[in-house]
């Protein structure tokens, strides 16, 4: 049997503590934090919704989107991080992936003014006034961006504003991959 010295009894908790400290330190490094809550929707079809368009209140369902991969971005005019990530939404559009914006708990005039000021990269903007559709998507805050493949399956959920590290490491390659898959 293993001889456990007196020291071991004292050292073992300290060793566990140091191990945990190292693990936590690594996990808390910027760029190394994945979704705080992993999305329950990854690998599943886009939840159905029925939302009015911002511009003319016409009703839109998930199946009305043209076929092919796309992104869905939940945003609002009152959301500062949404403004911060706006250049990346533009980049998604520039890479050739359509982005559909869902305006979350906002005012029509404020949303339109925001889009006018920053530019509108969205293929279409839908209005989720009460935030019900956001709950159907498992949204925990905004901005959140979902990446959907050509088969309508959610492949990735970006929780929080897109920033340089995530864009370079995860999103730009993901978009390239989604488009390549669709081209086959």
């Amino acid at each position, binding site marked *: *049997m*293993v*001889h*456990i010295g*007196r020291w*071991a*009894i004292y050292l*073992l908790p300290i060793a566990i503590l140091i191990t945990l400290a190292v693990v936590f330190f690594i996990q808390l490094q910027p760029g190394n934090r994945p979704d*705080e*809550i*992993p*999305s*329950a*929707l990854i690998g599943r079809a886009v*939840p159905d919704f029925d939302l009015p368009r911002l511009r003319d209140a016409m009703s839109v369902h998930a199946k009305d989107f043209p076929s092919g991969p796309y992104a869905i971005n939940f945003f609002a005019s009152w959301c500062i991080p949404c403004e911060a990530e706006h250049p990346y939404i533009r980049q998604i559009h520039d890479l050739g992936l359509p982005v559909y914006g869902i305006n979350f*708990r906002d005012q029509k005039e404020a949303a339109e003014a925001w889009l006018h000021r920053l530019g509108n990269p969205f293929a279409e903007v839908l209005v989720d006034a*009460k*935030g*019900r559709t956001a*709950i*159907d*998507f*498992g949204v*925990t*805050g905004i901005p959140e961006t979902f990446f959907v493949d050509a088969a309508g399956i959610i492949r990735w959920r970006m929780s929080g504003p897109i920033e340089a590290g995530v864009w370079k490491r995860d999103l730009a390659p993901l978009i390239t991959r989604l488009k390549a898959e669709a081209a086959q």
Partner: protein
Amino acid sequence: MRECVHTWGQRVYMHARVMTLICALGWVAIRAGFAESTLPDPVLEARARVLFMEVRCVVCQGQSIADSNAELAGEMRLIIREQLRNGRTDKEIFGFLRDRYGDFVLLRPPLTAKTVLLWGAPFLVLCLGIILVAHYYRQLARQDQFLSSSDHERLQGDATHAEKRP
């Protein structure tokens, strides 16, 4: 003109009544400001309150939606009340939320293959601790057995020696 003279005691009493009235009004006003429309059926509302304690606020993740002031928590409370009114069971309501947010949305995660380690970990650590401590003390006891026979005699001798002394 006759001056209205109150004793000190009377004045305190009057102030106390006014303060109580102000506090009561204030309390009602604050409650009204935060009031949500509760369900008219008290049984359903009681069920709702119990369910709220079981659902995690995904914005302020340490709280239940019963405690949280977050908008999303309010929306979830609204949805749960609606579903209760539509006759859903607790299981169906939890299923609705788990479907969208995953098991993490429940403050008491269900016991599945994935969470059995979560539930069992405290017991495992406790058992490990008990085993280690028991092992350590058994070791100590075993070391006592290694006293030589001459040491034993000395121990015995000291004891009888002590007894003989007046």
